[in-house]
């Protein structure tokens, strides 16, 4: 990937892994609990004064992610529609359903995570910040915590810093959640298509006769080297 979509998210993930030690990779199921990965800069004035408020940070990040899952599902839907249409067109002659499934997974993951990232990044940034602000204010106004008096400038500084430092974490979780969901959905959507391939060798050629040979897969479904790679990149 010369331009770097995949590389970019991989880099994000690499950095996350780096912070928490090898093997501590963020998993999809963690979309509901970002706690172990949340980053809190040591010199945030508000948290220096009231360290107990730090507990609210993972809750705010988690809620920001939850709040955005509707938008994410829209990306999943769009990517599935596109993938279904292109896979059924390009692999109409492919007899091996495992090859088709592999290409479908590659494509749907790439399209979904790209769409999810581009649509969610800005809302996620502001959601983290506003969720943290409201959680802190709620805590400060609660009769159980009479000691806490929130200074507005300090609150804003804390929210901005936390949001900036945890945006990448949020994006990675959202991207992974979306890509995994899309992979499941596309398998359901293409189940009948996969099954047809498993049942028999009879597959109609969907490619117009007028196309020259180099633009279609070979008659037995074999792809050229370059063709085989398109769905991998």
């Amino acid at each position: 990937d010369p331009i770097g979509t995949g590389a970019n998210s991989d880099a994000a993930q690499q950095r996350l892994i780096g912070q928490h030690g090898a093997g501590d990779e963020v998993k999809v199921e963690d979309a509901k609990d970002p706690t172990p990965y949340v980053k809190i800069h040591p010199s945030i004035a508000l948290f220096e004064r009231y360290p107990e408020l730090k507990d609210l940070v993972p809750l705010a990040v988690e809620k920001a992610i939850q709040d955005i899952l509707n938008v994410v599902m829209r990306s999943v839907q769009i990517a599935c529609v596109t993938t279904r249409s292109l896979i059924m067109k390009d692999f109409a002659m492919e007899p091996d359903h495992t090859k088709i499934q592999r290409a479908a997974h590659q494509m749907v993951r790439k399209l979904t995570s790209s769409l999810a990232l581009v649509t969610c990044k800005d809302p996620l940034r502001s959601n983290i910040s506003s969720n943290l602000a409201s959680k802190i204010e709620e805590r400060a106004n609660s009769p159980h915590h009479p000691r806490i008096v929130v200074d507005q400038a300090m609150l804003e500084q804390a929210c901005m810093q936390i949001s900036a430092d945890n945006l990448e974490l949020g994006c990675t979780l959202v991207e992974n959640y979306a890509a995994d969901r899309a992979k499941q959905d596309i398998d359901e959507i293409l189940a009948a298509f996969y099954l047809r391939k498993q049942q028999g060798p009879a597959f109609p050629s969907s490619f117009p006769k007028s196309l020259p040979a180099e633009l279609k897969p070979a008659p037995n479904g074999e792809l050229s080297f370059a063709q085989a790679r398109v769905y991998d990149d």
Partner: protein
Amino acid sequence: DNTTGTQGKKAAIPSHLYKLVNDLVEVEKRDSALLELSKKREDFPGLAPILWNSFGTIAALLQEIVSIYPLLSPARLTSELSNRCCNALALLQCVASHPDTRSAFLNAHIPLYLYPFLNTVYTYRQYEYLRLTSLGVIGALVKMDDSDVITFLLQTQIIPLCLRIMDNGSELSKTVATFIIQKILLDDQGLAYICHTFERFSTVSDVLRKMVLGLVEQPSVRLLKHICRCYLRLSENKHAREALQTCIPNELRDNTFASELQDDSEKLTRKWLQQLL
């Protein structure tokens, strides 16, 4: 090869064009193939079905599009990458405007991959070019007067994106965005959709009004023409017609734009304006 030297509408597809389409699936050859094909596309109307039907071509073009997303915000898009992406968009525009590929293009939801570009707000040239080219693809779709296109666009929230560009885009982007709104309005379901609530109507009419006021400072006859056509079509809805009595800016009623419209080629715009008032 009987196509040597033949150019224009009826030209058959020469074999080197097939070769270029084939090059699109190869990452190393894609950049130059995109450039060559986007230059030649208008000479070969038969190119669209080949782009759509050949293995992996559309997947490759989509990869080009989504690979730009991470560079959109914060601004890291270079002119070089913007040009490359616009060449891919130009090929998708081919597919969008061809009668044999348009429905497949819509059914695969491909226009939606352009919306993130329309959603950008940077005014740098490379961003402007990307927005304008994306608007061009949507413009090519609505030009077909196909009500399926309008249904698709209404369901996918293109209107707010166009309105924002009409509000603060360049003159050229404003013109294409207004053209798209005009085409949506000219469709019966589009007119009904925009006039369905007063809020929708007034959002559109506010933007049109603001554009008219902007034209006083910076005149543009082609933009004025599309704005007048939008107003005229809105007036065909009963409720909108009543509301327009107070919404149409005075600048359209007095002779503010008389000098721009005196040219004979603007006869139609003059007629629309008279009809409207």
